[in-house]
């Protein structure tokens, strides 16, 4: 019996869900993997505490979002690359929505992007999102408002996804 068995079980069960969140936050498969790996290295260090009286998944998710915001705040030197953003087209409407939304998400600030992912995909309430981000409910509301306004401005073709009716239904 290895002392990391519990951690292994947790990762095996939850890593794909966490990876999906990491991918939505970063928009890049390699970065998402790096982000999640770096967070899990911290989780394994805290595992003995988390496994006794904590909620490992909530802790990991919170660490994931905070680490992502922290990474994005870091100044990064410009690196020449032959790696333009992963974008392409298809004649399929759903594929087109996906591509345009991914491009539009890239135009948000890290916190705005995190709010969109947590509120509209992870289905967290405003209070839960505020707790996870370590800010007030008012801040979550204003960040959501600004994020949606920005998405509507940079991607008017996504109007059908971002209409008030849709948003109210998602946020319900």
């Amino acid at each position: 019996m290895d002392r990391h068995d519990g951690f292994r079980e947790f990762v095996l069960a939850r890593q794909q869900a966490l990876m999906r969140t990491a991918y939505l936050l970063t928009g890049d498969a390699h970065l998402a993997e790096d982000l999640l790996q770096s967070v899990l290295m911290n989780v394994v260090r805290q595992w003995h505490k988390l496994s006794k009286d904590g909620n490992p998944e909530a802790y990991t998710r919170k660490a994931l979002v905070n680490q992502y915001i922290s990474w994005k705040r870091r100044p990064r030197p410009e690196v020449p690359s032959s790696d333009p953003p992963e974008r392409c087209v298809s004649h399929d409407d759903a594929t087109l929505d996906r591509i345009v939304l991914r491009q539009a998400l890239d135009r948000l600030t890290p916190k705005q992007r995190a709010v969109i992912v947590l509120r509209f995909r992870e289905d967290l309430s405003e209070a839960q999102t505020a707790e996870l981000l370590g800010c007030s409910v008012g801040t979550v509301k204003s960040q959501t408002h600004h994020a949606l306004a920005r998405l509507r401005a940079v991607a008017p073709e996504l109007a059908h996804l971002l209409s008030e009716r849709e948003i109210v239904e998602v946020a319900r």
Partner: protein
Amino acid sequence: MTRLRETLNDIADEAPLVNLADVAIAGYRRRRRLTTGAAALGTALVLAAATVATTVPWQHQQPAASQDAATVPDLPAGKVGPLSHAYQTRCEVTTQRSLNCDDVEWRVVTAAGATYRVPQALAMTTKEWRVPVSISRDGRMLAYYSRQAQAHVIRDLMTGTEVTSPVPITEDRIGAGSMLVVSDDGRYVVFDPREGSKDPGTLIDVRTGRTVSLNGKYEVVSAKGGVVELVRYVKTDLWLMPVTGGGKPVRFKGPYIMFNEVSPDGRTVIAVHWDRRNRDLKTGTVTVLDVKSGRVVRTLPIRGLPKDNKYTALLSTGPWTSGHEFTVVYATKERVATYAVDADTGQARQLTGYQRAFGELVLPGVGEPVS
């Protein structure tokens, strides 16, 4: 479920499958060892440096040995960094004026300039057809055919991990002008057994083993963002096919060749208009095409390319380096070079140059080898 959530879920579905438990534990252990050992190591290094300084005079670092056939090392296991290009060594001309291709092999050159042999990558089939390799657009992934595995292998140069495709491909399927394209995440490889034939190609998901048969009339250009770009020459049709299959081709009026990947805004593609006298190839003129309507957006003469003699010509178009710059591969008599070209003005600036000493030169994100 609303469409916004559905779309976010669709994006999340593209997240790669991972297995990070052991990697995280190993990273944690390594970090702990580093922390606890740092003080002792620091002391040891200071002592060692002091000893060296007092016992031997300073020596300049020896220049790296020139990398001829005898000294080129094999591609090591582990991280080597992204690749700049790969090349196939040339066949030897024997004294009987015939070609000996027994020693032809694939070599890769990293962005940092190190050259390695890749003996595990088959270079020639038993029927003496050249076997392709492919480098992803960012240089991180190398895909090749392994005779031992009878399948394609994808090597991640950033981590050193290798994934062997679960889909066996027999060596005799590899024919004349066979093509291979790997996606940026290394998950998909597209194998075209015979260029210009109607023999169908195969799109392989190396993680799941799922395959999609590709219409043999089309040739693959790129695989990115979950979409495979296929071109049917002469007609000319461009088909942006999702990796799960489907989609419809769009037709361009007139024959075009040398397509590159779709622009980052998803609207246009670069190609070269073909005529019997290859005028656009010789003059370095490309055409910007609309991928939705099939119309010509503009003809773009490239400015700033060397035009020193009659041997100069466009060899290929390449990936986009930004939203407004794409790359081309251009050759003079002595050199092959890649240029970034402004998609609005046509102004070119040189990125990288290569000596014309290779049998086949494979560049990141360029589907076909240039030679």
